[in-house]
């Protein structure tokens, strides 16, 4: 067995997360590092899906409440904490979206207006988010789900676990999506090293 009196380890991120989950099962306050690490990615994921900060905050609150409540059921050997966290997030968002349809679908930029537009320094953020939303709106929903989790920092394997897809299905979706987005962005198709794609 390796020396356990370590100050710094090279554990993989998922191992570190699993350790913190184990600690949080005994003391909820021990969840703090995981919360600090993931609250912002989850919030942004929710904001991207829901379009308003208020809704995103509500959804983020539900995600972390559910995650804390569900920690005893988390199994590190099955999935990384991150993929499990975003699976919970995805499910919460599905409920949110189901509850408010058909009033607010994320199929166009005109539907992403932030109800709290804020001061000038928020303008750039809003504009940038609008750009991403426009890009996301240009691909089918199944591909959009994959891209949203890519934006959240998940790997192919983690996206597959979070969305209940096979890794190959994730690869296909992201390839199709990025091929489409490349055209939307005005980037030329691949022309090096062989026939045109």
């Amino acid at each position, binding site marked *: 067995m*390796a020396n356990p009196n370590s100050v710094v380890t090279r554990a993989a991120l998922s191992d570190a997360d699993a350790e913190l989950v184990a*600690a949080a099962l005994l003391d909820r306050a021990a969840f703090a590092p995981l919360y600090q690490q993931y609250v912002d990615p989850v919030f942004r994921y929710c904001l991207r899906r829901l379009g308003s900060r208020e809704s995103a905050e509500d959804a983020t609150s539900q995600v972390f409440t559910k995650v804390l409540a569900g920690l005893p059921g988390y199994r590190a050997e099955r999935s990384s904490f991150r993929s499990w966290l975003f699976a919970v997030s995805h499910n919460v968002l599905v409920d949110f979206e189901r509850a408010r349809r058909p009033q607010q679908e994320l199929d166009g930029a005109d539907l992403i207006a932030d109800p709290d537009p804020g001061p000038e320094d928020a303008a750039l953020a*809003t504009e940038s988010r609008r750009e991403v939303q426009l890009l996301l709106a240009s691909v089918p929903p199944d591909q959009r789900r994959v891209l949203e989790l890519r934006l959240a920092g998940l790997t192919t394997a983690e996206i597959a676990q979070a969305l209940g897809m096979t890794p190959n299905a994730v690869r296909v979706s992201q390839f199709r999506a990025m091929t489409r987005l490349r055209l939307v962005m005005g980037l030329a198709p691949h022309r090096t090293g062989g026939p045109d794609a």
Partner: protein
Amino acid sequence: MPDHLMDELDRFWDAQLAGNPTDALLSDAGLGEAVRRFHTAEDVDRAGASFVNRLWDELVHAQVAPGDASGGELNDAMTPRFMRPVDTMLRHRWLAAIAAALLIVIVGGIASYYVFDRHEDKRYTTGPAINAPATPSPTVQLTPATLFDVVLPAEILPTGDGRLSGLVYIYVEGGATGTWLNSCCPGPMIEHVVAGEIAFTTKAATQVVRANGSIENIAADTEVALQPGDTLVTRNEFEFRASNIGTQPVQMVEWVYVSDPMAYFAGHQLEGWGGLGGLDATQTLPTFPSSIRVTLNRLVLEPGDGKPPFQTDGIRQVVVPNVETEILTIFGDRSFSAVDSQGQLTTAYTLEVSPANSTRDLPIVGLPAT
């Protein structure tokens, strides 16, 4: 569909997210550029600090029942209530230390420690028992002070992207003796004694900055005793033995600045080392092209008192001696303030690192890597 491009894109994206080189992974430059633009456009719109703090406050105080996390309806008891709209708190980042210690008990060893020290050590084949917190009631005089203020030369500092800076407040049980073995993650380390008396014997030459400011060079394999105010200047990769040579817990502030892309910091955990001291670690660090100034301060804070943001070309970390009674709100810009813990004062230790531009009068200490 070109399968090779699909696989290349997959590897490219995973590598990019992991911060690894992507240059040779994708033969279609346009796809790679599309991924980059997609992420660049996204990198805005963070959760508000007040929301983050408020939600955490609700989460740690809510009565959350164990249950399903699959995404169904929330019941009322599980819904955050946001009862305190302002002035919320974020507990100090001490929990990684306890998490690491708890895991030793729970799974007895753990792969997370595995790579850190590849040497088999029969003395620890079952993992040490978790130490009952040697903590509490600090008898240290609560006076604000600059405890340590030196320059570390550039040549002894870690470089590159995989750097980590970690600060932790440690208690060492009376009479405890432990050995820290050679490890990965080279870089400077300091141990500043706040209370008690502790002796270090290190396998390499070290230095001690005494409370009066004098500097002693300590030869390898030579025991040196430290008293309150003294600071051992060593390196994380140096093997050492430490003994609490008194009967009362030793209290120390430990700082490491090391290099390892996959590192995370849990504080040294020798036999008898532990307690409820805070921990603060970060891998979000500026580049230091030259020497650095390292300053350790003790602050005594009234409720609401704190520090403004630190300079962006430096590092500030902060710990408290007892995370159960001393709570700080720490913001992303490294400003912080003390939370009112029933009207009590909060003691905080800040470690600040900044470029040593105009610090000619400060002592220069530090040891090269071996």
